[in-house]
């Protein structure tokens, strides 16, 4: 891998940077410190969230029904916050710093901003968790008014958000000085472009958060009479679902990054990839309406329009990435000489490299599960048969868990050795980790999906409804058992990752002064595999087969849901 540091001057202060011993890329020391700090708290959040996950999953398994009701709802709140907010966002701030400095050959703009940002986020996270664990915020992570939590709970969220906003500002300012100091040439690298997309969306969502959470804080402190629950829902989901677009943009950037790092994949077409990222920004608002499709107070026209803006272009954006990412992988593999049949390139991929297998499985599950179910349950009328059933967590465990979380863990297999300068412990076991986690979470999702199709609600302690004579079929308890069993497996997967990370960071063998131990790439066997022409740079028959299977599943699932809707009572 060649370095850009060699021929372009970075803007580092003397003694404030090093050159990576593996990639030759420049590393800003300040950025490196704050990437580590954010990553450490991200991992702590993942641990807290994982413990909550196993407890709630075992409670929803009827045969186990572990927690008492009060603690089920409390741990559900813990799970939502620590997973969806703290784990993901701490890590994303780290990723933004990494992308803006190392990939642009720049120093981090401000150490002070990074410090204040981190401190605010950490204080916010501690406040929120303290309020939840002491039973003063049993409101779940949506905190729908008029359920009320302690003012310090809302204040904690606001501090966290302000901290995150400062981190994003630091990212933009870093890009600004990199441009000013000409530390790189030409347009932004694609990965940087994707990260900028994520950061722009982050700003918009955090502003929505301010609009809804500041009044809520005042209300909870007794300074405001009431908050309209309809208003709260509309604006809260401007925060809640738009922010998922941050995860999508960040995750897809990581996909491009990882395939490039591991097999040397190049974007098939920069214009298409960038255009797809821009669509996320333009259609950022899209998914917010998906939670309000069976709400009072919003009109049918509002619902249809806001669900799709007439043409679902953010969905199109994901379909484009769903084509160009595996396409880039396929071309790179074929170029290396793996040209047999439709899927020879896939068979020869480095499946024992957890960075690769994690990203690939994340991509497949994100598309086939998260994407297809999300669009379908977010269709105006279909919401009637899916709203607040377990089909919802089935959807977002397909996106933000099987997709984003698995992707970020795969990224860690490379970034931990590079940033912490330690080689991984237990590499043999870690090669299996993505598979264990994927099998577990897939099982959880299947259980939730089918239980949800039977109408079983999400966020519900007891589906036998506390002794009322509502029949729960053995089939339905079977699906819920899968949530519990899959939960145990997925928890093990997370635990392996967490323990290995802690062991590596604290006791791992230093790799200073030499390249990190490689996970294994792909041998170039193109000598003798025939000539490579310019057209071959765009030939992706295997990817075509994959996306046609995806589209078929999409069509079938979508219309199957309309069919199910046609069978229920009439309503208008």
């Amino acid at each position, binding site marked *: 891998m060649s370095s850009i540091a060699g021929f372009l001057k970075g803007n580092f202060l003397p003694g404030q940077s090093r050159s990576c011993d593996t990639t030759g890329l420049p590393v800003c020391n300040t950025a490196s410190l704050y990437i580590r700090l954010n990553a450490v708290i991200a991992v702590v959040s993942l641990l807290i969230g994982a413990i909550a996950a196993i407890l709630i999953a075992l409670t929803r398994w009827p045969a186990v029904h572990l927690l008492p009701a009060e603690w089920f709802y409390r741990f559900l709140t813990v799970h939502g916050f620590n997973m969806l907010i703290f784990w993901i966002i701490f890590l994303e701030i780290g990723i933004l710093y990494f992308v803006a400095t190392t990939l642009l050959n720049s120093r981090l703009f401000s150490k002070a901003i990074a410090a204040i940002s981190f401190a605010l986020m950490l204080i916010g996270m501690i406040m929120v968790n303290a309020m939840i664990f002491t039973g003063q915020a049993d409101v779940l992570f949506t905190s729908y008014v008029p359920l009320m939590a302690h003012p310090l709970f809302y204040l904690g969220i606001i501090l966290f958000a302000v901290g995150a906003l400062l981190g994003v500002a630091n990212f933009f300012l870093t890009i600004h000085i990199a441009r000013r100091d000409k530390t790189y040439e030409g347009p932004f690298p694609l990965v940087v472009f994707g990260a900028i997309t994520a950061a722009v969306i982050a700003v918009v969502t955090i502003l929505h958060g301010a609009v809804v959470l500041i009044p809520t804080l005042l209300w909870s402190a007794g300074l405001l009479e009431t908050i309209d*629950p309809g208003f709260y829902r509309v604006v809260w989901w401007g925060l809640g679902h738009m922010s998922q677009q941050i995860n999508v943009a960040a995750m897809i950037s990581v996909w491009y990054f990882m395939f490039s790092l591991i097999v*040397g994949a190049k974007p098939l077409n920069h214009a298409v990839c960038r255009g797809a990222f821009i669509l996320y920004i333009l259609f950022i608002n899209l998914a917010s309406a998906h939670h*309000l499709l069976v709400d009072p107070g919003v009109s049918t026209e509002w619902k249809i329009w806001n669900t799709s803006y007439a043409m679902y272009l953010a969905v199109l954006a994901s379909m484009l990435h769903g084509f160009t990412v595996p396409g880039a992988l396929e071309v790179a593999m074929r170029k290396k000489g793996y040209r047999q049949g439709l899927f020879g390139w896939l068979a020869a991929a480095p499946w024992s490299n957890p960075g690769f297998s994690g990203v690939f499985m994340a991509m497949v599950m994100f598309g086939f599960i998260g994407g297809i179910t999300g669009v379908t349950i977010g269709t105006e009328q279909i919401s009637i048969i899916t709203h607040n059933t377990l089909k919802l967590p089935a959807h977002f465990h397909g996106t933000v868990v099987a997709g984003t979380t698995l992707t970020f863990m795969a990224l860690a297999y490379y970034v931990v050795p590079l940033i912490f300068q330690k080689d991984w412990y237990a590499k043999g076991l870690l090669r299996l980790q993505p598979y264990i986690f994927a099998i577990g979470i897939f099982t959880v999702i299947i259980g939730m999906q089918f239980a949800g199709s039977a109408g079983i609600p999400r966020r519900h302690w007891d589906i036998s409804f506390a002794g009322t004579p509502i029949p729960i079929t053995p089939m339905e308890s079977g699906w819920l058992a899968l949530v519990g069993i899959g939960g145990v497996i997925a928890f093990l997967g997370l635990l392996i990752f967490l323990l290995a990370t802690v062991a590596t960071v604290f006791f791992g063998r230093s790799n200073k002064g030499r390249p990190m131990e490689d996970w294994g790439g792909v041998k170039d066997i193109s000598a003798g595999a025939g000539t490579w022409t310019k057209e071959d740079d765009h030939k992706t028959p295997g990817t075509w087969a994959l996306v046609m299977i995806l589209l078929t599943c999409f069509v079938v699932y979508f219309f199957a849901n309309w069919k199910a809707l046609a069978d229920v009572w009439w309503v208008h």
Partner: protein
Amino acid sequence: MSFMIPEKDWFKAPDKGEKSWIAIGFIWCLVLFFSMPIWHIYGKQNSSSESYRVKPEDFSARVMKFVETNSIGKDGNTPIVQPKPGGHAYVMGGGYIWYPILKLKKGNEYILHISSTDYQHGFSLQGEAGINMNFQILPGYDHVLKITPTTSGTFNIVCNEFCGARHHVMTGKILVED
């Protein structure tokens, strides 16, 4: 490294394959969109556009009046109420109960008003043959559904929006006769 700077002439039109996929994707996105307005014309299940602001105490008073005039019996402490076909019917969520129990006739349309007297709730109708329909209710909003039962039997209402520590005990009933 390839995620680094793109080549100088990086801006290229998509090639044939990419264009085809963009076209296929775009057409599918249009299908996704048009399915919604089309279902409003031909489909029988559409979310309602009708809702009104109402003070929880006013809604509660209307429910009491509805129960008084149409009550036909009791199940435990909960009145069973039979609205006129085509007429107004009320279900109120609050205090971890759904009130009252409705008795409806299959194949008739009713104007169902649902609302809450305390927190947000999820009106989730559950019955045999896979019937499951869900609507959000909010305090301060009278959510109006013109609803026609197409199957008969006993249907349960559960709450599927978290409303507090005893959220899971919040159940109610709708009876439908042929």
